[in-house]
C-alpha cells in the first residue's frame, strides 16, 4: 500500500486500470441496480417545492431544553415532544402533520412541521398557534407555503433543462472529441446521478431544489473530470504514429495512468470543502439545508471521480475496440500472446513525448503533418 502511494506520488504508476475496471464495474452495476430498485420501490421523498404543502420551522432555545437533550426520543423543550407539536398543528387546522426534531446544535433545536393546510385555514392562524404551543415568538418561525401546481412546474422546468443540458453536452463532446466519447461521458454522468438519486431514495432524504442543485453540480464535476481524461487520451492518440503495436485499451490505460494523479488530487481538493460544509457547517453550526446539500454532493463527487476513470473510459475503449484499425491491433496483440500491450504503448508514448518536448521550440503542426504523410 505504502509503496503504491510512493509510486503514485512519483508518477511512476502504470497500473492496468482498464483491467481493474472490469472487476470494479460488477460492483458498480450492482450498486446501480440497488439504486434503481430503491427508486422504484421506495420512491423519492419529495420536498414541498415539488409536491405543494406547508412547512413550519420552530426554533426551540437550548436553555429551555432538558439537560440530557433527549433529541433521539423526539422531545426538546420542557418535555415538549413532536406529538405535542403535531397535536397543536392539528388543532390549528393542519391534520396529519409530520413533525421532526431536525437540527440539534449548541444553541437551538428546530421542530420541523410539514403538512397541508386544511380548507379555509389561514397560514397566519397556524403560525400563531404553533408559536404559542412552543412558547416562542411568531417572528422567530420560518415558514413556507407552496401551491401544488407550482411544484409540477418546477419539476417540469428542471426536467426540460436536464434534457437540453444532456443534448448540448453530447453535441459538444462530439464536436470536440468524437461521438463515442459523448456516449462514454453520458454513461458516466447517468451512473453518478443514478447513484446519488438512489442514495436519496434509500435513505429517504428529502429532495429539495437545493438537492437538484447538488445533482447538477455532480453532473458538472463528473463531466469536467471525464473531459480531462478524454483530452489526454485524444492528445496521446494524435501524437502517436499510426503503428498498431498496441491496442486502444493500452492507449487508454497509459492515458489514465497519466491523469490519475490529477484526478485523485482534484477529487481530494473538491471533497475537502464539501466535507467541511458537512462537518463544520452542518455538524457544529446546524444548518439543515447545508447538510442535505453536502451529503448529496459528497456522494456525487466520489461517484463522479470514480466514474470518469472506471466507467467513462472503459465504455469508450469498448466502443473503440470495434473500430477496424483498433480491432486489428487487438487481434494482432492476442495472436502475439500479449494480452496487455501497455508496455509498448508506454514506451512509444514516452519516446514520442520525450523527443517532442526535447527541442527548445517544438513545432507541433509541421511534425504531425509529416507523420501523416509517412
Amino acid at each position, binding site marked *: 500500500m505504502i509503496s503504491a502511494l510512493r509510486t503514485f506520488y*512519483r508518477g511512476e504508476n502504470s497500473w492496468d486500470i482498464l483491467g481493474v475496471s472490469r472487476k470494479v464495474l460488477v460492483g458498480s452495476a450492482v450498486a446501480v441496480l440497488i439504486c434503481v430498485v430503491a427508486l422504484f420501490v421506495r420512491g423519492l421523498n419529495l420536498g414541498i417545492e415539488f409536491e405543494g404543502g406547508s412547512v413550519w420551522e420552530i426554533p426551540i432555545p437550548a436553555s429551555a431544553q432538558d439537560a440530557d437533550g433527549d433529541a433521539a426520543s423526539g422531545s426538546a423543550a420542557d418535555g415538549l415532544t413532536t406529538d405535542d407539536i403535531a397535536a397543536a398543528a392539528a388543532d390549528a387546522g393542519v391534520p396529519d402533520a409530520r413533525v421532526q426534531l431536525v437540527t440539534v446544535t449548541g444553541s437551538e433545536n428546530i421542530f420541523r412541521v410539514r403538512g397541508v393546510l386544511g380548507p379555509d385555514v389561514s397560514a397566519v392562524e397556524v403560525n400563531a398557534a404553533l408559536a404559542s404551543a412552543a412558547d416562542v415568538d*411568531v*417572528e422567530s418561525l420560518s415558514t413556507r407555503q407552496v401551491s401544488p401546481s407550482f411544484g409540477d412546474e418546477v419539476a417540469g422546468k428542471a426536467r426540460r433543462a436536464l434534457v437540453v443540458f444532456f443534448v448540448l453536452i453530447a453535441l459538444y463532446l462530439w464536436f470536440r472529441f468524437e461521438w463515442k466519447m459523448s456516449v462514454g461521458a453520458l454513461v458516466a454522468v447517468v451512473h453518478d446521478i443514478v447513484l446519488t438519486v438512489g442514495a436519496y431514495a434509500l435513505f429517504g432524504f428529502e429532495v429539495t431544489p437545493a438537492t437538484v*442543485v447538488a445533482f*447538477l453540480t455532480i453532473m458538472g464535476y463528473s463531466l469536467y473530470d471525464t473531459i480531462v481524461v478524454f483530452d*489526454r487520451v485524444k492528445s496521446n492518440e494524435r501524437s502517436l504514429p499510426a503503428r498498431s503495436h498496441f491496442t486502444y485499451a493500452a492507449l487508454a490505460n497509459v492515458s489514465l495512468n497519466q491523469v490519475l494523479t490529477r484526478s485523485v488530487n482534484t477529487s481530494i481538493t*473538491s471533497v475537502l470543502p464539501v466535507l*467541511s460544509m458537512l462537518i463544520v457547517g452542518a455538524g457544529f*453550526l446546524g444548518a439543515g439545508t447545508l447538510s442535505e446539500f453536502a451529503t448529496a454532493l459528497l456522494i456525487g463527487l466520489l461517484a463522479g471521480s470514480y466514474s470518469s476513470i472506471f466507467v467513462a473510459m472503459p465504455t469508450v475503449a469498448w466502443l473503440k475496440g470495434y473500430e477496424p484499425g483498433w480491432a486489428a491491433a487487438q487481434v494482432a496483440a492476442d495472436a502475439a500472446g500479449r494480452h496487455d500491450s501497455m508496455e509498448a504503448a508506454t*514506451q512509444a508514448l514516452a519516446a514520442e513525448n520525450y523527443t517532442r518536448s526535447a527541442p527548445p521550440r517544438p513545432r507541433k503542426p509541421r511534425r504531425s503533418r509529416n507523420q501523416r504523410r509517412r
Partner: protein
Amino acid sequence: MRRSQIVSLLLAVIIGFGSLVGVIVAGWVPVLGVQLQGGVEVLLRPTAPADDEQLDRAIEIIRSRVDALGVAEPDITRQGNQVVVQLPGVKDKQRAVDLVGQTAELRFRPVLLTFNPFDEVDFSGAQQLAEAYNGSLHPESVDESDSGAAEDELVGEQEMTAQELLELIDPEAAAELDAESADAAAVDDTSETAGATDDAEAEEIDPSDIGSEQILDFTAPEDDLADWAVLLPGRGEPVGYVLGPAELTGEAVSEAAATFNNEWVVNVDLTDEGAVGFDQIAARYFGQQVAIVLDGVVESAPVIRAAEFGGTAVISGTFDEEGARDLAVALRFGALPVVFEQDDVRTVSATLGEGTLRAGVVAGIVGLIIVGIYMLVYYRLLGIVAVASLAISGSILWSLISWLGESRGLALTLAGTTGIIVSIGVQVDSNIVYYERIKEEVRRGRAIRSAADASFRGAFSTIVWADLASLIGAGVLYQLTSGTVRGFALYLGLATLIDLAVSYFFMRPLVVFIARKLVNEEPRRLGVLGGTDDAATAAAVTGGAT
C-alpha cells in the same frame, strides 16, 4: 520571463486586489438573500393570462407597496409570467406577505380636500378631517377609538418619508434633492413638477426646506379600504388628498386610451353599468374633483365638468404624452386588474438566516484553509500559486457580487453560496492540471524553467475545454430554470469565467516566475520526487513500464 507576462501578472494583482479595495472603500457589501438574512420571498403567478403591460404595472404597484415596508434591498423581478418578490431583512413578515398578495383596485373617490403634504399644519388638518369623516361614517369604530391603538385604524400610518413622496411627484427632482442634500446645499429649482390635472392648487414647494426623512402619515396600504375616507398622495404633483369612500371601481371602465387632439387627453369608455354609476357621481359631484386612485396613489383628480356622460368621458388637463399614456394604462389596469396567486411563500426568521450564513461562511473558510494546506504540502512552491490564485479569484468574485448587489439589487442566495464553494474546486483543479503537466515534463528530464512555460499550452487547452462544459451547464440552467437553481447557475458561471481569466493572466506568469527565480532547478521544491538528473529520470520513465 517575458515582459508581457510580468505586465499581465502585475495587472492581475492590481485588478484583483484593486477592485476589492475599491469595493471596500465604496462601502459596498454583497446583498444577502432571504435565506441568508431572514425575510420574505413570494412567488406570484397571475390567475388569468396577463400581457406585459399589465404585469409591469402590477410589479410597479407591488414595488410601491413594498417601499412602505422600509426594506433596504427589495428585489422584484419578472421571470416569464411569474413575479418573484424578495424582501430580505423585512421586519413585519406577515404584513409583507399580505401586502404583496393584495389585488390592486382602481377606485373613483370624491376629493374632500387637497393640501400641501410638506406643510405639517396642513397635514394634521387633513388628518383630522379624514378622522372626523370616518368617525361619522363608521360610528362603531369611534367607541374604540378612545384607545390609541384603534386610532391607527382610522387613519393608518404609512411611513412614507418626504423623500419618497418627492419620488412619486417628480423622480428627477427627488434624485437631485437626494444628491444635493448629501452636499447640504440648497436648491430652488427642483420644484418643476409636471402638472397633470386641471387642478391649479399645486403650490410652489421648495423641497430643500424640508428634511427628506420627514415622516408623512398617509394611509397605509392595508388601511386603504373602499368604504373609508383616506389620505393619499398624488402622482406627479405635490398635492395630498383627503378622499371620501369609493363611489365606483375600475370595473366600470371598459377601455381607456391616450389621444392627441390639440392637446393630450385620455378617452375613457365605460361599461353599461359603469355609465350609470358614473352619471350618478357626476350629478352628485358636479364641479368638484373626483380622484382616480390606483392602489393608494391618486393618478389624476379631474373636475367633473358635465352632469351626464353617457358612457364616455374625456379627461383633459396639462398632460404631456407620457402622463396621458400612464393614466390610460392605469385605467385599463384598473378595468382588468391582475389577480395573483401566491405560488410559493417563504418566510425565514432572522436567526435561522444568520445561522445558515454563519455556517456557510465558516464552512467555506475552513474548506479553503484545508485545501490550501493540501496544495502547499503536495505541490510545495506551486501550492503558493494555488493559494494566491484562490485569493485573487476570491477578491474578484467578492467585488463582482458586491457590485451586482449595489447596482442591480441582485442578492447572494444560499444556492449561490454553494455555487461559489463548488467553484473553489474548479479553480484548484485548473492549478492541479497545470502542475501535473509540469511535473510530468520534469520527470521526463526537462528543465523546470522550460517545463513551466511549455506545459501551459496543453494544460490551458484542457482547462478551457473542461470549463466550457461547466459554462454550457450554467448557461442552460440559467436560461431554463428559476429561483434556487438559477441563482446557483449564475454564480457558478461567474466563478468559472473568473477561473479562466485568473488561470491565464495570473497563474501562468506566477508559475513561470517561481520556476525561474525560486526553484533553482530542484524538483523537490515542486513536490517532484525522483531523480534530478536526466539519467535518473530516464530510468524512472522506463522503470515505470517494466
